[in-house]
């Protein structure tokens, strides 16, 4: 009986512990709530929905000058790439060949990825130096060079996520929501659906 009681107490403690775990922080004065400014300063990565895109806008015409000034050193005058950086233009029709040319135009699925990467990671060595308008203009320039938009089209927080990239349907599974289940996705060698 005593033994049973002991088990009961143990069980009760366990249950209480689990409930507390699920509901409230357990570790007093470890970590704090960030300020809205602290979150805003870092919450800059842009997903396909484009929710984090900053104000600003740019066209391919504007982007051409910035590209000539800041990008050609590595990516080449026509975006053809070099030993230092990948090709950015062309490659259509090569994905089924043994020498696929994977560029913004031939391969990339989301236009938001172009802005996100340029804005945070380019030019290499001067990351974070571009203003939003410059990053929009460079994004527009690459879209234009890949025959996706006109050189006068303005790219901004509204127009960018709405662009359908030429190879958007070239990926498996086609919809982002369908890659959610890890077990189905656990894909290597023969296990890919």
């Amino acid at each position, binding site marked *: 009986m005593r033994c049973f009681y002991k088990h009961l107490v143990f069980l009760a403690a366990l249950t209480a512990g689990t409930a507390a*775990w*699920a509901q409230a*922080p*357990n*570790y007093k004065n*470890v*970590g*704090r*709530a*960030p300020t809205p400014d*602290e*979150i805003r*300063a*870092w*919450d*800059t*990565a*842009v*997903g*396909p929905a484009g929710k984090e895109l900053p104000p600003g806008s740019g066209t391919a015409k504007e982007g051409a000058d910035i590209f000539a000034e800041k990008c050609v*050193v590595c990516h080449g005058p026509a975006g053809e790439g070099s*030993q*230092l*950086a990948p090709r950015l233009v062309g490659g259509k029709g090569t*994905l*089924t060949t*043994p*020498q*696929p040319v*994977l560029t913004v135009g031939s*391969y*990339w*699925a*989301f236009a938001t*990825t172009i802005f*996100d*990467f340029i804005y*945070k*990671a380019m030019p*290499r*060595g*001067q*990351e*974070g130096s571009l203003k939003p308008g410059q990053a929009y203009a460079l994004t527009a320039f690459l879209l234009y060079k890949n025959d996706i938009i006109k050189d006068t089209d303005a790219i901004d927080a509204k127009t960018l996520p709405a662009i359908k990239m030429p190879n958007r349907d*070239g*990926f*498996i*599974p086609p919809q*982002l*929501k369908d*890659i*959610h289940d*890890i077990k189905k*996705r*656990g*894909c*290597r*060698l*023969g296990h*890919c659906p």
Partner: protein
Amino acid sequence: MNSKKSGRRQFLKNSAALAGLAAGAITPAGAAPPASETVEQLHAYGQRSHFESWTRKGKHLWPPEGQSGTRDYGFRNPIQYQSGMITPAPLHFTISHGHEPRDIDPTQHRLLIHGMVDRPLIFSLDELKRLPSVSRFHFVECNANSGPTGPTGAARRAPTATAQDTHGLTSCSLWTGVPLSLLLQQAGVQKSATWMIAEGADPPHHLKSIPIEKGMDDCLVAYGQNGEAVRPEQGYPLRLIVAGWEGINNVKWLRRIKLVDQPYMDMRESTKYPSLRLDGKARWFQFELGPKSVITRPSGGQQMAGPGYYEISGLAWSGGGAIRRVEISTDNGKTWTDAQIQDPVARKAHTRFVFPWEWNGEQVVLQSRSTDERNEVQPTRDEISKIWHIDMDYYNTSTNLVGHFNAIQPWKINRDGSVLNALFL
């Protein structure tokens, strides 16, 4: 929040320091120790014997001094000289992808957890160290490790390739830190959150989208590596360890985790890491790495001393869990015999295997084959080729990067005692 002082000057300083390290490391075996080093200095922070001269191997062409050469594809771990199952931290492989090691002040570094959570939280490093900690052995492996195509394919296929050339993009450490699940529970993950994005404090802010199930499973926010702080080139002061999954998930210099409802399709995860198939369709998001193994002694580039007794020794690992079995073939794959698996055996960690063997001096091909706790067996090159519908020509000519290539590695020992990479012989 975080130190903003880095920039180019700091980077150049770091590069100079790294160059100094490298110069020190390639001192030829047998050279006298530097005369300037006092006994106190030698005892303050130990160095290996100057007779031990093997180092990581790689190229780093940034900042560009010329336009020639190839882009950097990582510094490979000299896996063939490692004993046991731990990779010394200074030899742990690195792939920079433009993310240079940074000089981060740990007192200024912060980890922010926000997005779809009930209580956004921000932690200092000291605060994280006050939380319940765990230490776990885990490998980190590049998904391109041992891959036979793409930019480094030729060097990997070459008969002269060493185990460093073929399998040098994996390493194993004892990582110490806070379980990510604990931090996420503190923040209170909302039901709508299905993914998280993990982001680094490096200037290009490397980012990886990870399904929330994995975040709540066995991820670790690590500040310790093999008993000391995580090395700068490994993410000092904080690295996310995502056990068993492609190396790219293990975000270095971790500063932010945001709970979201879809993957963010960062440049690398959406354009460099999908597997492009022959039909032109590409498979997004392959996370877990399959069972793999490699014999490290004897292995490519080594020289047998002559007929007689040798212990065959190597490493096996799997993203699917613990290694349950390793078999050895000494007759080009005709027959297989169990090797002995040595402690410690940990899940999603390198595991050392050994096998007693006597070389009779004849030409022979040695191979190892691992099986993990899910009973998944490491395939042969031909089995992979069949699954992928590719022929030998494809390996030799395609520029397409074939990731997750975990084929059995054959080493051929010639009568003269030389050891060659026989994957494509």
